[in-house]
């Protein structure tokens, strides 16, 4: 009797063998894209990695798409029309078409996409300037069969150059849910040399995804950021202005900027964050202090005193930060995240929810103070 009992008990442990599927039966979705459709409201585009391809890679990446009313409808349609079963277990990038993002409809559409088919909001998000099929095809290369390069590049760009934000969809959802800031997402496009104007303007050649003067194996580039007001995209910041916005949010680590000196000479300076920024909000007034270390390129060629250069860099950055903030205030986007500090004054969720933070933000006066510490002194003409 005991033996029979033990055998029956062991049988219950074999539950995972029932309806099991071989790993080869799956095709793994690497990238997910959603944009406006032509016949149906939405067009869902997927990059699928399935067995096959060349002798070296053993996998091939294909771009497939379906128009549908909802994400689950698109998933079912594509699943039925594809020879393997689609799995989202390896998906790590979500692209949203700019047209859809500007309408703000993507949040509701994507809310029903997460959870069930093993798709999670830990995906990186980019806003696609051009049709998503073109953007995805621009990333496919024999040299990078897992499309890993472009995903790590977004993270690396935020850390090493600051020209694009590395934002996950969960962070976007948090921004939309009224957590006290607006989303800022990476901006991607194919290198067609069509200029994208950024919000503050002023740059002859804005560093923006899809507007880069690049000839490379990968035809799609990521740079700059798309800024949001709630769930609606309201504009684009180029790489420089994205970097300056990240200096205020605290996400900036390191980046390089060019400054034109009063004598017309242009210097390149690598900036490092030394401390987290300090932000204080008192009613309609706010003060922001940013701490940076500046390492000028070829300091011996700069004909300026250390103190003068330091003051000049600080003044330049303060002016530019002010211009970026004014542009963001104009489109009602709190991408710098002042609301995260405003919420600290509240001791009840009801009071915070009743308070219209954005109304105060639009007219808020902010004083920027940039503290620059030079790591190398420039050539001092007076000491010669």
């Amino acid at each position, binding site marked *: 009797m005991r033996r029979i009992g033990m055998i029956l008990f062991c049988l219950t442990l074999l539950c995972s063998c029932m309806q099991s599927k071989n790993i080869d039966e799956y095709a793994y979705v690497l990238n997910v894209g959603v944009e406006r459709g032509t016949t149906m409201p939405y067009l869902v585009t997927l990059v699928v990695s399935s067995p096959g391809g060349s002798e070296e890679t053993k996998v091939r990446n294909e771009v497939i798409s379906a128009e549908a009313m909802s994400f689950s409808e698109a998933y079912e349609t594509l699943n039925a029309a594809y020879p393997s079963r689609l799995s989202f277990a*390896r998906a790590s990038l979500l692209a949203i078409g700019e047209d859809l993002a500007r309408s703000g409809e993507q949040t509701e559409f994507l809310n029903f996409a997460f959870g069930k088919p093993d798709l999670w909001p*830990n995906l990186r998000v980019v806003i696609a300037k051009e049709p998503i099929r073109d953007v995805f095809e621009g990333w496919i290369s024999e040299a990078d069969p897992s499309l890993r390069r472009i995903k790590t590049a977004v*993270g690396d760009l935020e850390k090493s150059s600051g020209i694009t934000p590395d934002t996950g969809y969960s962070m976007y959802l*948090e921004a939309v849910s009224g*957590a006290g800031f607006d989303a800022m997402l990476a901006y991607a496009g194919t290198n067609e040399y069509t200029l994208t104007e950024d919000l503050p303007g002023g740059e002859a050649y804005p560093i923006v995804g899809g507007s880069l003067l690049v000839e490379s194996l990968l035809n799609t580039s990521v740079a700059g950021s798309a800024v949001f007001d709630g769930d609606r995209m309201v504009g684009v910041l180029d790489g420089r202005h994205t970097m300056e916005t990240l200096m205020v949010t605290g996400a900036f680590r390191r980046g390089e900027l060019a400054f034109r000196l009063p004598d017309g000479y242009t210097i390149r300076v690598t900036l490092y964050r030394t401390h987290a920024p300090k932000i204080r909000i008192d009613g309609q007034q706010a003060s922001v202090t940013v701490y940076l270390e500046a390492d000028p390129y070829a300091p011996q060629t700069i004909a300026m005193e250390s103190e003068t250069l330091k003051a000049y860099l600080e003044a330049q950055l303060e002016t530019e930060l002010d211009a970026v903030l004014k542009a963001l205030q104009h489109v009602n986007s709190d991408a710098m995240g002042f609301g995260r500090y405003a919420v*600290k004054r509240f*001791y009840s969720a009801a*009071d915070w929810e009743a308070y219209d933070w954005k109304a105060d933000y639009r007219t808020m006066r902010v004083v920027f103070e940039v503290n620059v510490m030079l790591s190398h002194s420039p050539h001092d003409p007076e000491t010669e």
Partner: protein
Amino acid sequence: MNLRIGTFGKQESAAIVLLASFIGGCFSFDSRALFGNGNASYLVQILALIQSLLLFEAVVWALRVRGGNDLSALIGDARWKKALAVPLILALLIAAIQPLGSFLVTVTEYVFVESKQVTVCLYLLPSLFLLTVLGAETIVRTARVLLPILLLSIVAALLSGLGQYRWYRLYPIPFRDPYGIFMLAGSAQLRTCAPLLALLCIGEGTQDRMAMRNAGRIGAIAGGLTAAAALFALSLTFPYTELKMMPSPFYRMLVEVRAENPTLRLDRAVLFLWLGAAVLIAAFYLYAACVLFAKTFGVRDSRPPALLLSGIAVTLMLVLYYDSELTVAVLQGLYQNSWALISVPIPLILIRRKRRTRTCAASE
């Protein structure tokens, strides 16, 4: 009597209380109530822990004064002993199904998406019944074995989310409504008090009263503070606006990890480890309820009530965690009011029934 309590040491007793306090603190709350008015979940957990420790100390003090090893000794001395035991048994039953129900929803929503809750429950029932029948010694010794790996999984889970923590998510802290925080702590009392109540029910196996008291203190404080730390980490990961609508926040915390993070595939392993712990804890509560039932109602064997309570627990779990308006309302009512099942009977149990003296009886 065949109650199968056995004998176990302080480490085992502390381990089961610690596990139960952690699982209860992290997986037995109603998100809407806890995060509905801001985020003070970690403070609520600590306040509830203090309230529960006070009740526990009061019971241990009464046991020392009157000379007894477990709660049934006090119940035997109280007036309306059966009426007082029933709410405690119900409290243990509810404490058993709350974390299991929460895991049931997580597993069917996110892991076995094509399975129904009833199918998953069929796998839970035999293990729950088997553990409850085997008795206290099996349960607490298994808890002792499981504890290190579970603590490791908690540390790994908290560390994996390190990159996602943001301080501003802690705000607004609802200090304007301290009464609300105290009320939440009151309603959280079942999840912090149930481990100590269950330990008091099986106190006979803990060798002596002092060992039980020390194990209860160590387990409840360590488990309660670990749960408070985990809730604090959760508060740093998600804002209250999302948490109040999130069905399985701790599982969501595990899957927030980015693709390049080495702990990416940790979620399923940790989930099933925690599910195993939840089954063990449910068995612990059900077994404690069986012992209380058997001692109060004079049943000489713990196995028939074990079968009965396991069946009731799984059935209730299926009914209550079926997503409908009625069950959601009932479940919310249970989460908010089940504290009364412990906090009302325990003080009454501490009041000793007046015994008639022989002289009085003779004069009558």
